[in-house]
Structures are given as C-alpha cells and as structure tokens.
C-alpha cells in the first residue's frame, strides 16, 4: 500500500489567493471588529468590551442617528426591491422576446449607467433635478405638469426616495442582465410543450418562466441587500457627508464615514466608527443568513 503523501501543490496553488485575501479582506475585517471593543480614555487605548455598542444603541445622541440611518437604509432597500427588481425582470422578459427588434441596442443602453461612476451619476442627476439650471422643471412644464416640480433633493420628505430612484436608474441593468441570462437558458422544448398544453403568452411567463428564474431572483435580492446596506457613494456625492437635508438621506455608510473619519470640526473617532462598521457587518450577515437558510433551502429547483 502506498504511503499517503502530503499534497503540497494544493497549498502552493492556494497560497497567493489566500495571502492576498487575508491581507486585504480578512485581517482588516477582524481588526475592525477588534477595534470596536476599544476606546480612548485619557489618551490611552483601553479595552472597553461592548461599551461602544451600548453607547451606539442606547445613548440617545448616538442611537437616534443610528436608528435614523438604519431606517433610511431599509427604505432605500425597499425601493430597490419594489422598483428596481420588478422593472429589471420585466425588461429582461421583454428583451428575451424573440421578435423584439433592436434588442441588443436596448440591452446596451439600459446597462450603460451601471458602468458609470457614482460621482458622475450623482452630479448629473443633481444638475437634471436642479430647480435653477435643471431640465426637469422645463420638461415637466412642457407636458403641462410644471406644478408638480419640487426641489426634491432639498426636501426631507422626498430626498431619500429621489436618490433611491436615481440609484435604481443606475443599477436596473444588473437584475435585467442576470434574469435575461436565466431566461435564455430555459430550453425551447419546455415552452413548446407548454404551448401544446395551451399555455401561451403571459401565462407562459407566469407558469413556466417565472418558477424557473426564481433562484436567480433570490440571488439578485441578496445582491441588492448587500449592495444597499454597503451603499455610500451616491449619497456622499449628491448630498455630502452630512447627508442633508437634516439627515434625511443619512444611511449607515455616510454615518460610518462621518464618525470614522470626522467631518469639518468633528474629529474622527475610529472606535465608534468601528462599532458602526461592526453593526453594519452584523446586519448584512444576519440578512444573508436569513436568506441562505430560511429561503434558499426551501426554494424548489427544477432540473432542466
């Protein structure tokens, strides 16, 4: 019997990825979690256990801002789930229609904003919606709806929804592409078999295609969730770190930035910043776990 040898080549081939990933992802992540348990007292770094989290969740000065940011974040996510993903699916269903002309053109045009920088998107939309120079007021005037125009980005009640819709505009291409790919992989025979049984048109979509693309929709939901709870760039580029008006667009990312790096006269606080980052990490982790164990395992899969 041959002696089992250590298979060194596995370690060698894994090493580069493991090292790089450890250096840039795992180590910073755990160091952040560790930093959240410390605080500076009289210029000394002290281990304070969960005191930072107690401050964050229970001290009204911090918790108000935290719950506000968390609530805004959920609203931001909800808009994406209710607007971005259904539109993405609808667009994919239209694009996969065999008789649609210029499909490649539409596909590209809708996907292009996704590759734009947040800064460009934020700036461009700020200009479009500007009450002074923007084209939104004159466009609305042209169709006789000028009265509906509001300085949306400057009003507490509209600003977050407006920015969420801008973000939807930017990213609607991603669910569209993923669903489009899933739709294309549905075999033609299946649809033909359905047709013979009298399932055509809309009901073919609801009864055959939709169940088959459900796993893709699940993946998109979780990507949206993770993306939204890590979001920062668009709010920062459009409204600044103070996420105005009156913190109406403050999400966890901007709250973290302000706390960690400081803003104007406010000095950065790496310890509370790390506590917020850890809380964000926990929220995302819980969300992903709920999906993985609660939803994905129960989803019915079909062998194509």
């Amino acid at each position, binding site marked *: 019997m041959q002696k089992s040898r250590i298979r060194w080549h596995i370690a060698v081939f894994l090493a580069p990825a493991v090292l790089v990933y450890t250096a840039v992802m795992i180590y910073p992540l755990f160091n952040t979690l560790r930093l959240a348990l410390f605080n500076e007292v009289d210029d000394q770094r002290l281990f304070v256990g969960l005191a930072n989290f107690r401050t964050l969740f229970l001290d009204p000065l911090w918790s108000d801002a935290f719950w506000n940011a968390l609530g805004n974040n959920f609203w931001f996510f909800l808009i994406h789930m209710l607007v971005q993903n259904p539109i993405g699916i609808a667009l994919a269903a239209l694009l996969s229609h065999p008789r649609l002309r210029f499909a490649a053109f539409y596909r590209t045009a809708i996907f292009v904003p996704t590759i734009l920088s947040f800064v460009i998107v934020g700036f461009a939309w700020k200009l479009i919606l500007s009450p002074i120079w923007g084209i939104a007021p004159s466009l609305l005037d042209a169709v006789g709806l000028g009265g509906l125009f*509001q300085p949306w980005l400057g009003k507490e009640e509209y600003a977050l929804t407006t920015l969420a819709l801008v973000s939807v505009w930017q990213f609607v291409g991603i669910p569209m592409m993923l669903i489009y790919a899933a739709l294309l992989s549905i075999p033609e025979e299946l649809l033909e078999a359905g047709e013979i049984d009298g399932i055509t048109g809309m009901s073919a979509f609801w009864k055959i295609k939709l169940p088959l693309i459900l796993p893709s929709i699940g993946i998109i939901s979780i990507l949206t969730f993770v993306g939204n709870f890590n979001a920062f760039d668009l709010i920062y580029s459009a409204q600044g770190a103070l996420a105005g008006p009156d913190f109406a667009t403050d999400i966890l990312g901007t709250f973290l930035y302000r706390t960690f790096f400081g803003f104007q*006269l406010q000095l950065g606080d790496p310890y509370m910043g790390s506590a917020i980052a850890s809380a964000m990490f926990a929220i995302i982790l819980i969300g992903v776990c709920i999906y993985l164990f609660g939803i994905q395992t129960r989803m019915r899969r079909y062998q194509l």
Partner: protein
Amino acid sequence: MKKTLTAATLLSTTLLAQGALAQDVTLTIESWRNDDLTLWQDQIIPAFEASHPGIKIKFSPSAPAEYNAVLNSKLDAGSAGDLITCRPFDASLALYEGDKLADLSDLDAMDSFADVAKSAWQTDDGSATFCVPIASVIHGFIYNKDAFNELGIEPPKTTDEFYAVLDKIQEDGSYIPMAMGTNDQWEAATMGYQNIGPNYWKGEEGRQALIAGEQKLTDEQWVAPFRELAKWAPYLGNGYEAQTYPDSQNLFTLGRAAIYPAGSWEISGFNQQADFEMGAFPPPVPAEGDECYISDHTDIAMGMNAATEHPEEAKAFLEWVGSEEFATIYSNALPGFFSLASFDVEMSDPLAQEFVSWRQSCNSTIRSTYQILSRGTPNLENETWGASAAAIKGTSTPEELAQKLQDGLSSWYDPQK
C-alpha cells in the same frame, strides 16, 4: 557593499540629473485651498524659491470637504507633506496633541502676530503655538451695485432697512432678492447664522460667556439670529431647498440675484466672474445706533509636520510665511483673505478694502462654535448647520432649534450642565 553603494549613488544621480539638482529639498504643502493652486504656483512659490535657492515647494491641495479626513489618514500613514495648512482650533490642536504638528513657538516670525491672531493655533493655556497664522475671513453681504442703482436703493444699516430693501427687490421682480440655498447646509450656518449672529450676542462678549457657561444657547440673544433666518425664506429663489453653494454663487455672479450673504473669501472669484460693480455692507444691526459686530474669523495658518525629514527647510519656509513679503503677496493675490500679521499691508481691491474697513467701525469676533464648543459629540458646529437650514425652511421653530442645540451641548460640556 561599498561598490553597490557607489553604483546606487551613480544611478540615482543620473536619474535625478534631468530634474532638479540632486541636493534640492522639495517640501510638499497639504492644503484644502484647491482654488488657490495657480496663485501658489505662479506667485507665492516663485517668490520664495527666488530668495531661497535649494528649496523647492510643491502645493498639493485636496477638496475642502474632505481635507480633514484625508489629512488625518495621511498623517497616520506617514505619507503627509512637510507643511500642513492648519484649520483653526480643535482640528489642529488635536494634531498637535497627537504629536503630528511641531511646536513653532520659538519661530522669529511669531512676533509679527498679535495674541488674538495666534489664539486659534495655540494650546488652551497659550503656552505653545503650532501654526503660523496666515489669514482671516470677514462675513458680510455683497450686493450688485448696478441692481441697487437701477432700483434706487441704498445698502441697509438696520434690520428694518434690510427687509425693506429685500421687499423692494421682490416687488420689482427682475432680481431674486438674495442668493442662498439650504442644500449644502453650511451656507445657512456660516453665511447666515454666524454672519448676522454677532450683532445679537455682542461678539466676543457672548461667545466668551457661552464658553464660560454664563449664557445658554436658549437665551434670547442666541435664539434671535434663528428668528431672523426664519424670515429669509420668501426672499430666496424658487427651490432654494435644493440650491447648492455653487448654484448661489452663479446666481449672484450671473446678475440674477441682488444680494449675496457672503464671506470675504468670495471676492477673488466674484471679481473674475461678475461683470457688474459690487459693493458690500456689514450685517445690519437690530436698531439704529447699535454697536456693530462682525465675524472676522481666523481661518487659515500653516504648520510643520512633526515627522518631516527636512525640519530646517520647512522652518525657513514658515519664517517666510510670517514675513511682510508673503503678507503683501497673499492679501493682494487673494483679496478677501486678510493677513493676520501686524504689518500695514496695502490692498488694491476696493471690495476687499470695504470689508477690511469694518475692522475700524465694528467689533471683531470669531465664529461662536469653533473654539472648544465643538469638541464633543454631538458636534455643535455640525448641529448648527442643520439647525440653521431648518430655521430658514421653517421645519422647526427657532426656540425648538435652540433647545436642541443646548441639549446637545450640555450633554457633554461641563460649564453648560
């Protein structure tokens, strides 16, 4: 070993020979004044390099809103420049206490500055000064002289006259009375609250009393400025809620708005952009004959990175920053940034002269939230931004806003408890 060293030296000389001479020292300046890049490159740096051979200066600014965060990260990482442009008060004090900025108390140039000029860059007990003061900015209102002549109105002296002027412009309809937006929030606080406020809290008197805990933000003199701001909304342009700071600047320089609540730092930009004559008036006083107070805010200074490799050269540059030559170049190239040095600097810009003339007729103070009071959480300065914007928009009453600020301040600041 020796051989490799020689080879390395040879190699580096050949590499460097094309650029500057090998023994030249290059000092890098960290700054948030990216607007001043050309001024530094074309005027200040050549003037310094002409008199100090062997030292090269590189001005490397970052965006104003990100400066503090960027600078702190760079200092922590050890990649910051040799010379650091200092924000006033706590941001720089924290850097000094964290051993990031060097003590410059024994610099000869420090003698050219009055104590009040240095106060923004000293330890609380005044024992150490860590930045060489450069300039202050003065708040007031800039107006379109052509528009005022056209409508036959005079710059107002009292608040009643101020609103009468605004009403008149409103009635005429060809101009937006006042160019200001609340989108960026800081405009409302800096050019609104801190601009008109000193007239109510009597400048230094109120500011010191607030720090000492003898006055509260809920006292009438601190609520009154919010009450005034609440009256501003009808005079601002349509959709001012989403109007940004550059929007306001453009509205004024394009001649679409008649009055601009300003800081003197706007002067050089406005001189380039506007093709009409401009004038300025100090914040109107509540009643005829009241003493006037202006915000003459110590805004900018320069210090030395404690970890610099070239402390001697950096000190030579800072000595020069405290010289009359620098003060003259700086205040003339940047009208609106008024030198803090005690030299009598000639200024040619009429608008800048107008602003600086108020130093004679009014009492100077600095922004109320900057010294000590923005040390804790919640940060009073940032809270004031939101409160001022809310006052203008009318989303809360002045009393509620003052109460909220006072609650925040007293939660961490002992003299206010």
